[in-house]
């Protein structure tokens, strides 16, 4: 009833090929974006920005990047956090070397640097497959984190092992450092994520996306059909790392403001992003964001319920939270292995008939 595409006729190829061919989808997305851009900034608090919205945007983007690699191209990677680190350290170094550089350009350059690094570490994927590849990407994870500590130049020779973001402006508005307004940070991050997500949505249904999916579904068959595995796999590694790198740069500059190799970009973060795409839905753009929202919000909701409402001690609540998270993950995999995006799909199909299913 609410979600009925009957009567929406396509009269041109362009309309048929639109990103959101169904009007309700289109209006829904536009509505969400308008709300996010025009309404949220007016009641944003530092808590909302730093604990919920910025983590959501950063992890959503990182999950999108990993989803391109794992969900679309079928290459399992456990080195996401290290690639976020490459983005973060590149952005730091760029900001130190060129203080006048526009922040968006810093993000894009950091993404490109990460893409280059990602493609180097993607080379073994031509020979190694499946879980063997996953474990091999851990080589990138450990090596890069080691390098972050080892290479003093990367940290601008700071006496401490930490990097701290230098203050900088974007279009005259302070964006990093202590003077930055949470709303400004949020808007910049949101704009970046929106543009990049639309880009990804287009990319995955174009030539690149189709070649990735062909490789994912069966690489030998894809090869026989004339898809070059080298080009397809490396482009997937490159694009994926670009997104992950931008996410890392935003994580460092906009969200955290300071970072340390193993602490912020350790293996647990890699797993977190992997969780996001599996819970959200492999091979969907929407799923990356749903998964990120779920895993950013879930611990906070659990904590607040158990500690503030039920009055448990923080430590008991934390241990219980582990159990609950684990059970939720397993439960999800059993009930809906295709993730939240699939649930969304089912909900939409139900909505077609609802409230009169017969």
């Amino acid at each position, binding site marked *: 009833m609410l979600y009925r595409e009957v009567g929406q006729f396509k009269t041109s190829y362009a309309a048929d090929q639109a990103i959101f061919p169904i009007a309700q989808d289109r209006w829904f997305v536009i509505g969400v974006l308008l709300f996010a851009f025009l309404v949220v900034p007016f009641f944003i608090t530092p808590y909302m920005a730093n604990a919920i919205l910025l983590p959501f945007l950063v992890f959503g983007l990182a999950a999108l990047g990993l989803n391109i690699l*794992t969900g679309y191209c079928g290459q*399992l990677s456990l080195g996401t956090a290290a690639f976020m680190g490459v983005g973060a350290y590149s952005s730091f170094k760029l900001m130190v070397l060129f203080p006048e550089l526009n922040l968006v350009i810093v993000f894009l350059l950091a993404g490109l640097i990460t893409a280059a690094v990602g493609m180097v570490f993607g080379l*073994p994927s031509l*020979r*190694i*497959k*499946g*879980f*063997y590849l996953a*474990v*091999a990407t*851990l*080589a990138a994870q*450990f*090596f890069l984190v*080691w390098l972050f*500590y*080892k290479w003093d130049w990367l940290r601008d020779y700071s006496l401490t092992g930490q990097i701290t973001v230098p203050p900088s402006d974007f279009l005259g508005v302070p964006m990093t450092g202590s003077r930055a307004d949470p709303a400004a940070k949020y808007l910049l991050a949101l704009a970046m994520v929106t543009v990049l997500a639309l880009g990804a949505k287009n990319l995955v249904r174009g030539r690149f996306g189709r070649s990735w999916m062909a490789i994912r579904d*069966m*690489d*030998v*068959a894809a090869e*026989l059909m004339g898809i070059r595995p080298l080009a397809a796999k490396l482009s997937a590694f490159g694009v994926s790392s670009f997104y992950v790198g931008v996410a890392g740069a935003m994580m460092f500059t906009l969200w955290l403001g300071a970072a340390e190799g193993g602490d912020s970009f350790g*293996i647990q973060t890699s*797993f977190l992003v*992997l*969780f996001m795409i*599996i819970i959200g839905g*492999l091979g969907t753009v929407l799923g990356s964001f749903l998964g990120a929202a779920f895993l950013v919000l879930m611990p906070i909701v659990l904590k607040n319920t158990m500690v503030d409402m039920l009055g448990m001690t923080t*430590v*008991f609540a934390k*241990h*219980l*939270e*582990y*159990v*609950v*998270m*684990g*059970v*939720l*993950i*397993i439960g999800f*995999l*059993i009930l809906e*292995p295709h993730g939240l995006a699939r649930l969304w799909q089912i909900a939409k199909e139900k909505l077609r008939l609802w409230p009169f299913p017969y």
Partner: protein
Amino acid sequence: MLFFVETVISGLLAGVMYSLVALGFVLIFKASGVFNFAQGVMALFAGLTLAGFLSGTVPFTHQINPALAMPPWLAILATVGVMILLAILIERLVLRHLINQEPIILFMMTLGLAYVLEGAGDLLWGSDVKVLDLGLPSGASDWLLDNYGLYVDKLEVVAAVVAAVLVAVLAIFFQRTRIGRALRAVADDHQAALSVGISLNTIWAIVWAAAGIVALVAGIMWGAKSGIQFSLSLIALKALPVLILGGFDSVPGAIVGGLIIGVGEKVAEVYLGPFVGGAIENWFAYMLALAFLLVRPEGLFGEKIIRRV
């Protein structure tokens, strides 16, 4: 020269310690195709349970009641019982519902399982360091140190013996027993095994129980070094390069892989480390495994992946 020998021996023994963890991975992967990331946490959980039984800790309260303290043999038996129970629970509640899913889904399931066990271990036994006193020898072998100036850790020699016994038992179990043969049949072909009347569910419960017992052994050995504490779960990360080097589904691979990784990383750290700033062994192990993989993409002893269109 003597120092080089010492480094190699240390590497071999450290490798055996990694193999102990890797064995558990192999068992489960072989029989069910699940890449069980929770193996490290299972080692922690088994270690915590054992330490709890030994000291007489009352579950959930973290209070020690000496009257409940068990003698070591009983505590070990009880822990084995707990691990078997855990395996049955995992099979009943989880695996049974995930038949025929993609490998990545099963892998994620084990990550979820890791969360549950971590939380449960902490809830049951508390998150303090627990000393595991089973009377295992520790420290350098005096005889070698005094007479030959050679430093060999006694605990690791014990670990090597235990690993050898474990592999022998597993080999006999796989080759000679009825269940072992059923296990191999399942590993070869799930459907064919089902069609000749082997129950997949029973086999999986048995395999997970076996992996749980291997985890207990790994927990005891590693726990004797550092005390039982949360970090024990991170030993899984040291076992992964061993696994890919040896091949996910090969018991001898886990042992040989462990030895190669152990020696490789120790020699690299000691001789190469000082020139590049040290602490290279973690990533070096992975790089070494990666180098082997480029030549043999399914590990040294892994089953050859045949791809058909």
